[in-house]
């Protein structure tokens, strides 16, 4: 690249061409300035996102302090409703304890990662190392297709197919009735939201892991095979060790995607800001959740109310900070991956 960063000055310019050269130089300067400005624009945009969302959400944090992140006596859904309508006496209701939504995000995202990570890694090993070339060539675009599928379609699949199936076949009505006093359980639940997220992030991770595995230098793969490894052992012992940073990067991006997914989770989660209770045993999985991002979509009709608006923007702040941190983490991990693979 260094060769192109220094444009050699035109040599031996004849006087009659001097003005042409001058205008050419000016054209270049304007061009460079233009692309620099556009580059600066992306920076300004992301900075503005941070600032505007934070400013709009600040009142919610200011009113609630650290309590924002905890659970409170009033259920979250009720708080959000009150923050829109105000107290019965007409004063505004500013309390917010968002823990149920945070817990929903943690549970669904964590669960999805738990399911999707091994599947993605195994699929990546399959595509990059084990599958015959023709099989891999056939399957790779299909996995890409899964990654490109709009999330609302996954949500629809969840709410129309998996959800009804779960409530019909997995939940006895006696249990549903018994638990209905505390919370309605049914198809749309923490389990369903987790499954939907897992299906959504699996192709993303698979793509990243497959690329990384394919980039592992041949000399390492051959080295392992020459030491008597079959392709599976080679993948497991050498390739997976070599792509560890890419595993971190892929998982970070996938977590970010899962944390930020609003629509599909809103459709599959059950629509109640509830913290599933592990004490309920297996029924824990069928209790509803409403993670952070889904909350914003579900209450999007209420942006006219100032307090609710601030609350929803505050959720946006949490989403921004979380995903930005994950992105930076992934970036650092892939930089170290590049160094690792480029090294020696």
């Amino acid at each position: 690249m260094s060769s192109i960063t220094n444009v050699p000055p035109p040599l031996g310019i004849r006087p009659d061409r001097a003005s042409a050269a001058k205008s050419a130089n000016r054209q270049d300067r304007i061009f460079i300035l233009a692309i620099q400005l556009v580059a600066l624009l992306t920076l300004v945009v992301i900075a503005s996102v941070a600032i505007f969302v934070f400013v709009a959400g600040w009142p919610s944090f200011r009113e609630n302090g650290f309590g924002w992140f905890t659970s409170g006596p009033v259920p979250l859904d009720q708080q959000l409703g009150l923050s829109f309508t105000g107290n019965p006496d007409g004063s505004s209701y500013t309390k917010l304890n968002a823990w149920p939504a945070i817990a929903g995000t943690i549970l669904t995202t964590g669960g999805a990662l738990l399911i999707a990570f091994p599947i993605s890694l195994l699929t990546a090993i399959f595509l990059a190392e084990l599958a015959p070339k023709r099989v891999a060539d056939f399957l790779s675009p299909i996995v890409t297709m899964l990654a490109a599928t709009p999330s609302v379609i996954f949500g629809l699949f969840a709410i129309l197919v998996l959800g009804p199936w779960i409530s019909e076949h997995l939940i006895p009505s006696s249990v549903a009735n018994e638990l209905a006093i505390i919370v309605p359980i049914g198809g749309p639940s923490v389990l369903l939201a987790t499954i939907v997220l897992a299906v959504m992030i699996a192709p993303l991770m698979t793509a990243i892991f497959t690329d990384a595995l394919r980039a592992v230098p041949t000399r390492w793969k051959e080295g392992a095979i020459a030491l008597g490894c079959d392709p599976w052992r080679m993948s497991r012992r050498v390739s997976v060790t070599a792509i560890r940073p890419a595993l971190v990067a892929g998982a970070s991006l996938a977590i970010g995607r899962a944390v930020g997914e609003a629509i599909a989770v809103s459709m599959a989660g059950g629509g109640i800001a509830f913290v599933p209770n592990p004490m309920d045993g297996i029924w824990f999985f069928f209790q509803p959740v409403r993670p952070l991002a889904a909350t914003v979509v579900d209450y999007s009709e209420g942006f006219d109310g100032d307090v609710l608006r601030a609350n929803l923007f505050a959720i946006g702040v949490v989403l921004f900070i979380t995903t930005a941190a994950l992105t930076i983490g992934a970036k650092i991990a892939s930089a170290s991956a590049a160094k690792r693979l480029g090294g020696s």
Partner: protein
Amino acid sequence: MPTRISDRAGYYGAWASGLFLTGVVFAIVAWLLVNGLRNVDWTFLTTNPAPGSVEIGVAGGIVAPLLGTLIITAMGTLIALPLGLATAVFLGEYGKPRLLKQLTDTSIDLIFGVPSIVFALFGLAIFSNPSLIFLSEEVQTSGKATAKSFFCASIMMALIALPPIVRSTQAAIASVPNVQREAAYALGKTRFAMIRKVVLPSIRPGIATGTILGMGRIAGDTAIVWILLGGAVLEPPVAGWWEPQNLLGFLHGTGATLTTYVYFASPAGEGNAEGKAYGAALVLFALVFIVNIVLGRAGQRRIGRQ
């Protein structure tokens, strides 16, 4: 064949996982086809959504949402493409000052990593500013802007289409051999002329790939549309919206896309019309699928060239 039990488990697990993900795709496609085709007919594709009965909130077809998807995708791409190209050229060809390069690079990563719901919130925050009323409409009571229009949604959509365009173009730029650049400089060409004559022609497939990826992201996004275009799925576009005197008003107004239509018509929304949701989902999936086929072709052409 691996001899150890753990190896065998892993080996078969890898096969099973690969086939499982493929199975998921096939299952979804089959399910969409079976349920969607039952509900897609010519009337469905050529009429506007209409209010339905008390039980079923949406009737009619999907002209308006389909149109919405096409308009948003086109406008978003039109905004993102020049910006993405310029950013990619800056990152790939110039990159000075270094600090700006690093910050821009990180910004693109962040724009990719931050979920669209946050951009929707951001759009709501800036576009409701009274000075930006020209992008949407005025709220009579407060004097603020509604921040809900095709313009507002398209601008934010341009953001989420930006990273794939930049990264794909950047990768293409990186694969242009330096010799070609040096040859252009040796002929006394300016940097601008060099990029226009040498770099741009050979990176067109890369730009196409990135653009198609970006279009896929726009067409598939729901959150931005839901918040910045409105959930008004049942509101038909004014008759003759394409005529010059109506077009601007149309683009300033709210609307729907296929994604919000599916959401609205699903049991999760107010429409509650399964059949309509299936039909629209199938059309949406088909659009994305076709775009992907095109993408595959473009990719192959690029490989064929090398």
